C-alpha cells in the first residue's frame, strides 16, 4: 500500500524543507505585553494570545486538506521570548552553523530580535530568575560556571532543558472541544462569571481566570475564521475545479470548528488540529501529546464509514501526520546534545482498554497504523497499548510496522501502567483511561495539570563523589558532600550507604531548584487556553497554574546511568570487599588518572561477569536497590499544589551528555564516555542471552517508577520477516508484558548498521547474527564472513 499522490507530494515537500526560526510570535507577544503591563498575569497572557492570533500570518499550502500552522513555513520554530530570552542571545551567533540542529534565520529577523525583543524580556525569564535565587551549594551542582548567566549545565543534576524550553508535557483535552465546541466552553465560563459573588475577595482571581479563558477561546475562533477567509480567497482564485471545491469545503469547516462541535470526521480532524496548534502557540514546551486519538475520534470515524468514506479518513490521517511533522521547536546547543534531531514527542496512542476495562481497539486504530505504514513520518510517535485481550491481529499489524524498521510503534503494557496510576491515587476509571504523554509517561486523560518542572539526576556521579569524598574530578572542586575516605570503609554496606547519602544530597538539591522554579512559573507563566479546556477548571474557576486540575503530579525526575551505577557497586562489592582482588586504594588511584597507568585493570573490571542486565540475580538486585532508593527519596517530595513527585528512567540520548560529567568508574568505564542507555546493560557488559536482559529490566520493578521506564531492544529485520517471525515477535511483546515490563521499542537492524558494525565493532558488542542452528556475535566474525552476511541475498518465503 502506498499513500495517495497528494500525500506523497506533501511528504516530499516536507522532507525538502529546512528548519528555520520565525519571529512573528515573539514580536506580537512583546507588543502586547508592553501594552498591558500591570494587568493580572493570566489576563495579560490571554490578551497576548488574542493579539498573536489576530496577526499571525495565515498560510494554506497547495493541496493541503488540513489548515493551520504556527509559522509561515513548515519546520519553522516560533520564538518564545518569555522563556527563551535569557539564553537566546548567546545562541544567535552560532544558530545557522552549529553542528547539531542548525536553524535558518534572516539577518533582518535577527536584528529585530536583538533590538526590539530580547532587551524587553532580559531578566524576566524563569531560568534567569531561578539562577539569581537558588543558594550557592545548589548552584555549583547545577551550573558548570555558576558565576554568570547563561551558564552551562553540569549534567550532575539538571533541569536546564526544562527551564529553558518552558512547560509542555501535557495531553490536551481535545475531546471537550470536539464535543462542545469552543462556544460551549465559552458559555460555561460566562455562566461561571455571572454566578460569581464579586463581593467575595476569593472571587476576584476566579473572575480573572474565567475572563482570560473566554478571551483565549474566542481568540482561537477568530484565528480559525481567518483560515476560513484564506480558504475562501484561494477558492475564488483557483482554476482547478476539484481544488476549488476542496478549498470551499475547508473554508466551511474552519468557519464552523472549533467554535462549534464537530459533526463529521473531517470537521473533527480540523478541530483537533486547531486545538493542538493553539497549545503549541500558547506553550513553548515539548511533548504536547495527542493521547488516545483512536478513542475520542472514533465516533466521527463511524459517521465517515457510514458514508462509505474510509479511504478519505485514511488520507486525512496521513495529512495530519504530515502536519505533526511540520512542527518544531528551537532549543539551545546544550539541549540539542541531549536530544538531537529536535524531537517533539507527540505521543499518539492506539489500542489499550476503555475506562470500563474492555478492549479499546477499533477500526480507526488499524487505520492509523496503516497511515503510518504508508506515510512514514517521524511524527507523531505511534504508541500501541497492549493487554492480554488485545486482538492478535492488531498486535501483529503493530509488529509488522516495527519490522519495517520505521521506528514506530512503541509498545506499552496497558495493565501495568493503569495499575501504577491507580497505586498513586488515581480513581479506577481514570487510571484505566490514562493517556501516554511524551516518551513513556502516563497522564490522567482530560484531568491532569501540566507538570511545572522536573529534572535529571546522575546516579554514577554519586559513585565518583564517594570515591573522591565529594570532589568533582572534572573541576577538582568540592561540590558533593563528605562521606569519608573510602579507603577506610570496612565493608560494602558502608560504601553503599555513602552513595545513598550522596544521592540524598543531590535529590535535595534538585528539589530545591524545583521549588524555586515552580514559584517562578506560577508568577511568570500563565496558560489560559489549555487551562480552559482541562476538565473541571472552569467549574472551579482556577487555572492550571493555580492548581485547577483534578490531578497534579510532579515534578517528574529522570534517573540516568542505572547500568554503570549497578556495575560499579558490584565491582566494589565483589572485587574489593568479597574477593579482595584489589584494594580500595588501587581502585581509587587507577580511577583518579583514568586508568592511564593501568589499562589492563580497566579491562579486568569491565570483563567481570557479574553485571546488571544479564539475568544474574545478585547484580539485578543491586541495580534495583540503587534505583528504588533514589525513587523513594524523590517520591517523598511534593509540588506547589501538594501533588506527589515521581521518578522514571527516560534518558533518551542524554546518557551521552551525562557521561561527560563523570570520571572513570569502577566498572572499567573511562572518563567522559557515555553512560548506559536507560535501563539497558552497559555496552560490552552484555554476556547473557536476549531473554536475560528482559528479566533484568523487569526486576527493577517498573511499576513503581510511576513516570515510566524506556527500553530499547534490537533485533534484525530477518528475524521478523516471515509470517511466523511476526507471531514470535508478537509473542515476545506479550511475554515482556507478562514479566512486568513497562515499555519496549524495537530497533530492527539493517545492513547499513552491519556495515557500520564492521568498521566499529566495539560499538556493537551485542549485535547477533543468526541462521538456523548457528549463532554468533557479529563483532566476533572474520572480516570475510561479515562481508558475506552483508552482501548475502535475501529469500522471500
Amino acid at each position: 500500500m502506498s499513500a495517495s499522490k497528494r500525500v506523497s507530494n506533501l511528504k516530499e515537500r516536507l522532507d525538502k524543507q529546512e528548519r528555520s526560526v520565525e519571529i512573528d510570535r515573539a514580536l506580537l507577544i512583546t507588543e502586547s505585553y508592553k501594552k498591558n503591563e500591570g494587568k493580572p498575569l493570566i489576563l495579560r497572557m490571554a490578551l497576548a494570545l488574542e493579539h498573536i492570533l489576530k496577526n499571525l500570518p495565515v498560510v494554506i499550502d497547495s493541496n493541503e486538506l488540513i489548515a493551520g500552522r504556527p509559522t509561515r513555513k513548515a519546520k519553522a520554530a516560533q520564538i518564545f521570548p518569555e522563556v527563551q530570552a535569557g539564553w537566546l542571545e548567546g545562541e544567535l551567533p552560532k544558530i545557522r552553523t552549529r553542528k547539531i540542529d542548525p536553524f535558518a534565520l534572516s539577518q533582518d529577523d535577527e536584528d529585530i530580535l536583538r533590538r526590539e525583543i530580547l532587551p524587553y524580556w532580559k531578566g524576566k525569564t524563569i531560568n534567569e530568575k531561578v539562577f539569581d535565587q537558588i543558594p550557592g551549594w545548589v548552584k555549583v551542582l547545577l551550573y558548570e560556571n555558576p558565576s554568570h548567566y547563561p551558564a552551562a549545565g553540569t549534567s550532575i543534576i539538571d533541569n536546564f532543558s526544562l527551564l529553558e524550553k518552558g512547560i509542555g508535557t501535557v495531553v490536551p483535552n481535545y475531546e471537550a472541544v470536539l464535543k462542545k465546541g469552543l462556544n460551549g466552553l465559552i458559555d460555561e465560563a460566562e455562566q461561571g462569571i455571572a454566578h460569581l459573588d464579586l463581593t467575595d475577595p476569593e472571587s476576584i482571581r476566579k473572575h480573572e481566570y474565567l475572563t482570560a479563558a473566554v478571551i483565549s477561546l474566542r481568540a482561537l475562533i477568530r484565528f480559525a475564521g481567518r483560515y476560513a477567509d484564506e480558504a475562501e480567497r484561494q477558492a475564488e482564485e483557483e482554476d482547478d475545479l476539484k481544488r476549488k471545491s476542496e478549498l470551499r469545503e475547508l473554508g466551511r469547516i474552519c468557519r464552523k470548528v472549533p467554535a462549534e462541535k464537530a459533526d463529521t470526521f473531517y470537521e473533527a480532524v480540523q478541530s483537533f488540529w486547531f486545538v493542538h496548534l493553539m497549545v503549541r502557540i500558547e506553550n513553548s514546551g515539548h511533548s504536547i501529546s495527542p493521547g488516545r486519538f483512536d478513542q475520542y475520534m472514533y465516533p466521527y470515524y463511524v459517521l465517515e464509514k457510514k458514508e462509505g468514506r474510509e479511504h478519505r479518513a485514511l488520507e486525512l490521517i496521513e495529512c495530519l501526520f504530515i502536519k505533526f511533522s511540520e512542527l518544531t521547536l528551537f532549543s539551545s546547543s546544550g539541549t540539542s546534545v541531549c536530544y538531537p534531531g529536535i524531537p517533539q514527542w507527540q505521543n499518539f496512542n492506539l489500542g489499550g482498554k476503555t475506562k470500563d476495562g474492555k478492549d479499546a481497539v477499533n477500526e480507526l486504530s488499524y487505520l492509523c497504523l496503516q497511515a503510518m505504514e504508508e506515510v512514514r513520518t517521524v511524527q507523531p510517535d505511534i504508541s500501541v497499548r497492549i493487554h492480554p485481550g488485545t486482538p492478535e491481529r492488531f498486535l501483529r499489524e503493530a509488529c509488522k510496522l516495527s519490522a519495517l524498521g520505521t521506528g514506530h510503534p512503541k509498545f506499552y503494557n496497558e495493565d501495568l501502567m493503569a495499575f501504577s496510576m491507580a497505586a498513586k491515587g488515581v480513581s479506577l476509571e481514570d487510571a484505566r483511561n490514562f493517556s501516554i504523554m511524551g516518551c513513556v509517561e502516563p497522564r490522567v486523560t482530560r484531568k491532569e495539570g501540566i507538570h511545572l518542572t522536573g529534572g535529571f539526576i546522575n546516579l554514577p556521579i554519586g559513585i565518583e563523589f564517594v570515591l573522591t569524598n565529594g570532589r568533582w574530578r572534572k573541576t577538582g572542586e568540592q561540590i558533593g558532600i563528605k562521606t569519608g575516605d573510602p579507603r577506610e570503609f570496612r565493608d560494602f554496606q558502608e560504601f553503599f550507604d555513602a552513595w545513598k547519602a550522596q544521592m540524598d544530597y543531590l535529590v535535595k538539591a534538585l528539589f530545591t531548584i524545583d521549588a524555586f522554579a515552580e514559584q517562578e512559573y506560577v508568577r511568570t507563566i500563565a496558560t489560559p487556553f489549555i487551562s480552559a479546556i482541562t476538565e473541571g477548571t472552569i467549574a472551579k474557576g482556577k487555572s492550571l497554574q493555580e492548581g485547577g486540575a483534578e490531578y497534579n503530579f510532579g515534578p517528574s525526575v529522570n534517573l540516568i546511568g542505572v547500568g554503570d551505577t549497578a556495575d560499579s557497586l558490584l565491582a566494589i562489592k565483589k572485587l574489593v570487599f568479597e574477593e579482595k582482588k584489589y584494594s580500595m586504594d588501587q581502585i581509587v588511584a587507577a580511577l583518579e588518572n583514568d586508568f592511564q597507568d593501568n589499562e589492563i585493570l580497566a579491562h579486568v573490571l569491565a570483563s567481570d561477569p557479574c553485571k546488571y542486565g544479564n539475568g544474574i540475580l545478585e547484580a539485578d538486585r543491586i541495580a534495583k536497590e540503587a534505583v528504588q532508593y533514589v525513587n523513594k527519596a524523590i517520591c517523598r517530595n511534593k509540588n506547589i499544589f501538594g501533588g506527589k513527585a515521581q521518578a522514571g528512567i527516560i534518558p533518551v540520548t542524554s546518557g551521552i551528555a551525562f557521561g561527560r560529567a563523570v570520571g572513570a568508574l569502577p566498572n572499567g568505564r573511562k572518563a567522559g564516555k557515555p553512560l548506559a542507555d536507560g535501563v539497558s546493560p552497559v555496552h560490552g557488559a552484555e554476556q547473557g542471552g536476549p531473554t536475560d536482559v528482559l528479566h533484568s529490566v523487569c526486576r527493577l520493578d517498573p511499576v513503581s517508577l510511576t513516570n515510566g521506564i524506556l527500553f530499547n531492544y534490537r533485533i534484525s529485520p530477518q528475524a521478523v520477516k516471515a509470517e511466523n517471525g511476526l507471531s514470535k515477535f508478537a509473542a515476545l511483546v506479550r511475554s515482556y508484558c507478562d514479566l512486568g515490563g513497562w515499555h519496549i521499542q524495537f530497533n530492527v537492524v539493517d545492513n547499513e548498521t552491519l556495515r557500520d558494525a564492521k568498521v566499529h565493532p566495539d560499538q556493537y558488542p551485542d549485535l547477533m547474527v543468526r541462521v538456523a542452528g548457528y549463532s554468533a556475535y557479529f563483532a566476533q566474525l572474520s572480516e570475510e564472513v561479515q562481508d558475506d552476511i552483508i552482501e548475502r541475498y535475501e529469500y522471500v518465503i
Partner: protein
Amino acid sequence: MGKIQATIFNIQHLSLQDGGGIRTAIFFKGCPLHCPWCCNPESQNPYPEIMYYPRKCLGCRLCMRKGQTVWNPRMGNPEKCSARAIELCGRKVSTDYIIAEAEKDAVFYRRSGGGITLTGGEILAQADAAVDILIKAHEIGMNTAIETCGAGRPGDFRNISEHTDQVFFDIKTMDSEKHKKLTGGSLEPILGNLKKAGEEVKKGKCSLTVRYPLIPGVNDSDTELQSLGKWLKGELNAFQLEIMPYHKLGVGKYEALGREYQLPMTEVPKKEAVERALEQIDVPGAFSRGNNPEE
C-alpha cells in the same frame, strides 16, 4: 536421577528458528560425524577446548598458568582473560541445571508455543542425558524438540523420540559411500532411525522435519536430489523438508580452534540454485529460509 550430566557448549535463549515458537536451545558437545562444512566445529569434540580470538587479545599475558614459561594463549587460563580473547568451550552441567535454565524462559514459551530444543553436536552421543532432560521437560508441560544427525544406536533414538514433540533430522547425502567418506559415519543406521522417526509421526506423537544442507559441488547434483526426494516420499508419511543452503559463518570458529577449514573454495549457493534444488527434490511443501543472518 538428578545427578545425570551433559557436556554442553552453549545455551541459547530466544531461539527463533529451532522449532516452534520462542525456544531455548541447548547445544550438546560431541558428534560422531565430522562434516567438513560444519558451522559449529566446536561442537564436534566431546571434551572442553579452548577457543582463541587473536584479534581481541590485548597481549597482557595474564592468562599464563603457573609453571608456563612460554606464553601460549591456547594453553592459557580463560578465567584470567579480561578481553575474552580466550574462551573455554564446553562444560559439564547437570540435567537439572539445564531444565532450570530453560524454565527461566517459560514466560516466553507460554505466549509463543515454544519450548526446549536439544541440539548440538549430537544429542544421541549423550543419549541418557538427553532422555532425562526430555522426560523432565514433559513432566512440567514443556514442549520439546531435537535436532539430530541420526547417527546413534536405534535404542537410544527410540528412547529419545518417545519424549520429543518436534524432530529435526539432518540427512547429508543419500549416497552411502559418499556419506562414509565425507562424514566418517555410515548412512544405513541413520536411515533406520529416520524411519523410526517416521513411525512416531504416524502414531501422532511428534512432527518431523528433514533438513538437507545444500553444499555446492558436494551434494547438489540433480540425481542425488531426485533420489533423496524419492526415498523420502517412499519411506515417510508426514514430514516437512527444509533445504539449508551452505554458509560460511563458522569459518572464524575454525581459526579460533586452531583448525583448518576444509571447504575454503566452496561458494555459497545462489538463490536460483536453492530454487532449482527444491524443484529437483520435488517434495510437496519443501522450503528454504535461505542463509540470511538472523535475529
